[in-house]
């Protein structure tokens, strides 16, 4: 990757993350609970254990990103 423009654009996108995340509170809570549950119970945390919840969060997130795009 070359040029400063890439970094600036990437940072700009990242700066919007908090507000987009705020719009997906339910999905975030569901995902967080799923992961937190694995730390206490007998289930071990492995890859994709909470994949369903994460996909839901990601969908919501990308939807929010599309609708608020300039």
């Amino acid at each position, binding site marked *: 990757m070359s040029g400063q423009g890439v970094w600036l654009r990437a940072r700009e996108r990242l700066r919007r993350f908090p507000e987009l995340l705020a719009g997906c509170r339910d999905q975030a809570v569901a995902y967080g609970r799923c992961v937190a549950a694995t730390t206490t119970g007998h289930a071990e*945390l492995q890859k994709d254990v909470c994949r369903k919840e*994460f996909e839901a969060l990601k969908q919501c997130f990308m939807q929010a990103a599309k609708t608020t795009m300039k």
Partner: protein
Amino acid sequence: MSAAALLRGPGSLLLRASSGCWCRRFWAASGKTAPAASPGSGARSPFDRQLKRKQKNWAALQPEPAKYDYLREEVGGRVADRVFDITRTFPLALDVGCGSGYIAQYLNKETVEKLFQVDMAENALKNTMETEIPTVSVVADEEFLPFKEDTFDLVVSSLRFVLIISLKFNIHQVLKPDGVFIGAMFGGETLYELRCSLQLAELEREGGFSPHVSPFTDVTDLGHLLGRAGFNTLTVDTDEIQVNYPGMFEIMEDLKGMGESNCSWNRKPILHRETMLAAAAIYQEMYGSNDGSVPATFEIYYMIGWKFQESQARPAQRGSATVSFGDLAKINALISRKK
């Protein structure tokens, strides 16, 4: 949280005040990892100091760098308190890793007559804050202080990782006999919420994890390190500052603004956006409070060490006590009897 306990960093003898990653420019962390596990004299630093210098310079050039100063100001004030606790006037003092002079702004001319401020990032020195003490600012590598031995009556340092490496060969050397060193650094619990959230997210999303938060020294190791560096009469105490943020991304942004991004050799250069998103959700759920804010913990160790001189008070020999602790209640009688 058993998984979180397992995931707590090795708590080894490395130290550094640092923080979450977020891809700054990645200077290819060339395979020279080997985080030095021992603080011995030949140990190579586990941190990329060139990168740290660039990060500090970058942070100092941002618009409104003072916005990120809140933590350093607080710790600088507490270090200055400890300087005041020592009822002496120090003719010549040194501040290693001064930043914009967080400690100096709280000190006064009666306590410190002249102050040298050293920092490796020249841009940070351009933002120095006002202080009534005559000051000289020096841009120098904190590991190679350009001063003669036995120069300073007081050396202070606040939240600089290079401290431990420097302690023996530099700070102890430039101190005069009966000089004192007062330092503050980040402790093992610092940013544990961030560390755990990132680790859990990476495990769940990617199947493995790598360190994104630098390892910190254990408080027990600190005493040994200071002792081996040659300091006497050590005092170490710990403090915890908890700062609340709206969310994980704001924490990472503030850490970057403070110039505290990760710079250890074994850092992973990339943090995927999905992992960050997952970590933010986990952070919120595991540590968030009712109003939606999340806390970030900064554990600070304060250390005071003295350079040996004949006239210093020394701990008495074991078994030479003349009164017992059990007589503490009768202390008034004991004192008047002695008179």
